[in-house]
């Protein structure tokens, strides 16, 4: 097919596109798949130095020797635009120049044609070359710097940066090059670069020189951090470039803040507080200032004591062995010392003092005197000692009580076993062989023995509960519950009770003790049943991440609210022996165990509706 003749016939097509081509600022050429120029605009003629009419029908290779004709077929097939292809153009006089072309295939009645938009990039190429040279020159220098370094041009765009800058701001190099400096340092930097109406370029340049400018940096993720920048301008062919050394001063800021806070604290403490003496001494140890607290603690009024040596606050033996002077010397050397010891009031009485002496120096490091803060801790010491003693006594009496309970129950058991065994033997051998009174008396004796044995057994287990907290292990609470249920097998079967549960967690605890708690609570739920068949439900919920709250709920007889606390007390029962056998130890034991495991136990209940016993245990997460 002769595309050329077809095109000549289709003047409508040419008219439509010529208008479009001429409107473009770039040189535009329409090329058919065979590589022949079909149409071109004025800019194209100018750029390549041809007269109008010389080019249509010629091979495009005549003006773009390499790289375009070869691409035409592929682009035509793919029908996709391609941009940024850098090639060389050739003028009519044979000179070459760098161009960038955008390929744009489009479909016409005559088939697919391609329009390369051609832009001369000589200037840009020169700039790039220049920049590359400069970059090569400075890169080595920049990378050697310990700080983040950024070179910015006068339009506020980043021209160069080093690895530290990439790291500090979290960008890749190519993400920052050519970007506005404002994107990483939003305020205070770009403003310094520009010579606006209010100042001359020289002034702007002068202002760019600076060290220790504190600004805020912004990372790619949007987080900000304090920075200190040092600017140094350099004049280059491209105008003024500014090199900025950027230092992350987060840590320094933190230290400064905490320093400021502690200074503030000291100031507040020293001025306002009345229960401590705040005294200033000169370098020789003479009192130069006196506050209300000092008067209250030491008994001197300001006019009596100012100008006097501070050593008179010390007891005679300390003055004799040179302690006051020694303390000043130590404060002078180490900045600050703290001492605890006896001091003397004006009236000669002694008090126990906590003393801090701080050396005060001027900016040149010269000793100006001492700050001395004294607290009377006699009372505190007394009450601390008293508290400590009371605690120790309490612990000893608790330990003794436990020891007593164990020994008593253990040693009581032996003679009781004898009494019980022989009354039982009596009952077996002589029942019906004495008179009816004797049978009755023996029966009471046997019953009493049985109950006492139960009591002692329970007391023994109570005194053992929690006493030897076994190793704390990661324990499956479901396993612990299963063991408790197994121990109660006979009871559960006899009462036809249903015991079910929700999923239970694994916690770090003493498994044996946990089994005992479950066993006691479930045993109670069945024992104090209501009219219906006993149903016991166990579940657990996690509370505030810190602890698990277990619940053992039943449909039993319930408990009146006034007894909610009492039931956890040793030997406290709500029923007589004839109604329900028991010793009143089960719940006390649960409480003891749960306390020892660092938890709490309580009950919620409604009479005739059932009870729910709760106990909270630490989640015991492994650290």
């Amino acid at each position, binding site marked *: 097919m002769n595309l050329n003749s077809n095109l000549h016939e289709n003047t409508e097509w040419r008219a439509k596109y010529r208008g479009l081509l001429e409107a473009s600022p770039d040189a535009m050429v329409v090329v058919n798949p065979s590589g022949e120029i079909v149409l071109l605009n004025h800019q194209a003629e100018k750029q390549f130095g041809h007269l109008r009419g010389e080019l249509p029908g010629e091979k495009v290779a005549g003006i773009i020797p390499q790289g375009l004709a070869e691409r035409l077929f592929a682009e035509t097939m793919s029908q996709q635009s391609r941009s940024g292809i850098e090639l060389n153009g050739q003028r009519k006089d044979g000179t070459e120049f760098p161009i960038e072309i955008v390929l744009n295939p489009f479909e016409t009645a005559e088939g697919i044609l391609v329009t390369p938009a051609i832009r001369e990039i000589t200037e840009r190429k020169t700039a790039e070359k220049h920049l590359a040279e400069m970059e090569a020159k400075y890169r080595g220098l920049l990378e050697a710097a310990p700080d983040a370094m950024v070179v910015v041009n006068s339009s506020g765009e980043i021209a160069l940066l080093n690895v530290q800058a990439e790291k500090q701001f979290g960008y890749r190099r190519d993400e920052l090059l050519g970007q506005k400096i404002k994107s990483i340092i939003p305020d205070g930097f770009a403003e310094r670069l520009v010579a606006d109406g209010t100042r001359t370029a020289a002034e702007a340049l002068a202002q760019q020189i600076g060290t220790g400018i504190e600004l805020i940096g912004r990372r790619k993720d949007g987080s900000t951090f304090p920075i200190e920048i040092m600017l140094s301008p350099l004049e280059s062919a491209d105008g003024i470039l500014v090199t900025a050394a950027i230092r992350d001063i987060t840590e320094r800021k933190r230290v400064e803040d905490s320093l400021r806070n502690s200074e503030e604290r000291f100031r507040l403490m020293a001025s306002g507080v009345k229960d401590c003496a705040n005294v200033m001494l000169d370098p020789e140890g003479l009192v130069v200032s006196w506050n209300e607290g000092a008067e209250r603690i030491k008994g001197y009024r300001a006019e009596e004591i100012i100008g006097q040596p501070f050593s008179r606050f010390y007891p005679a033996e300390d003055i004799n062995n040179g302690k006051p002077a020694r303390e000043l010397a130590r404060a002078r050397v180490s900045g600050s010392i703290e001492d605890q010891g006896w001091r003397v009031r004006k009236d000669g009485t002694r008090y126990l003092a906590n003393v801090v002496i701080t050396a005060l120096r001027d900016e040149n490091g010269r000793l100006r005197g001492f700050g001395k803060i004294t607290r009377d801790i006699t009372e505190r010491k007394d009450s601390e000692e008293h508290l400590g003693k009371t605690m120790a006594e309490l612990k000893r009496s608790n330990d003794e009580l436990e020891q007593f309970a164990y020994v008593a129950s253990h040693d009581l*058991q*032996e003679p*009781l*076993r*004898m009494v*019980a*065994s022989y009354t039982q*033997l009596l009952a077996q051998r002589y029942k019906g062989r004495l008179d009816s009174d004797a049978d009755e008396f023996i029966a009471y004796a046997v019953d009493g023995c*049985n109950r006492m044995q139960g009591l002692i057994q329970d007391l023994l287990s109570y005194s053992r509960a929690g006493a030897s907290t076994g190793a704390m292990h990661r324990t499956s609470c479901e396993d612990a519950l299963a063991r408790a249920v197994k121990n109660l097998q006979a009871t559960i079967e006899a009462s036809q009770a249903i015991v079910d549960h929700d999923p239970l967690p694994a916690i770090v605890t003493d498994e044996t003790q946990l089994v005992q708690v479950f066993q006691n609570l479930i045993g109670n739920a069945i024992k104090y049943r209501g009219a219906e068949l006993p149903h016991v439900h166990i579940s657990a919920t996690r509370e505030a991440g810190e602890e698990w709250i277990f619940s053992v709920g039943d449909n039993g007889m319930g408990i009146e609210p006034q007894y909610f606390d009492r039931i956890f007390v040793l030997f406290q029962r709500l029923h007589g022996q004839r109604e329900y056998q028991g010793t009143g130890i089960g719940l006390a034991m649960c409480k003891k165990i749960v306390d020892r495991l660092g938890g709490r136990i309580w009950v919620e209940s409604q009479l005739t509706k059932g009870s729910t016993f709760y106990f909270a245990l630490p989640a015991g997460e492994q650290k």
Partner: protein
Amino acid sequence: MMEPYGPSAQPIEVLLVEDSPGDVRLTQEALKDAKVHINLQVARDGIEAMSLLKQEGEFAKSSRPDLILLDLNLPKKDGREVLQEIKDSPTLKSIPVVILTTSSSNTDILRSYMLHANCYITKPVNLDGFLKVVKTIDGFWLSVVKLPPRPQT
């Protein structure tokens, strides 16, 4: 030829080491109905038990027990020491030792087995339980079990 144990044979010698007379009597009562003929000797403390076993002094004529029932908490010499001495002795260690005590502590149980006790029984606190235990000892150790042959003298 070894004589089989049994009602028709010579009595089985049992040494009960027990300081509580009540328990001694209860044990005797419980063994009254034993299936085998038992000759029960009693030692009231650890020293006496060892003299008896070694046939020393007044016990020179005592017969060597076929089975020992040993309490742990004894005056003078503790049951644990007695057990150790028995199991350390080449001539006595073949005699089965049944620990019969009020202690139910794990320490005592483990320690006794470590010292080669042949079994450990905690005395039940009520009469029926106690009688049952003694009958079980009788039924198992004195009827079911083959005891070691007596050394020829």
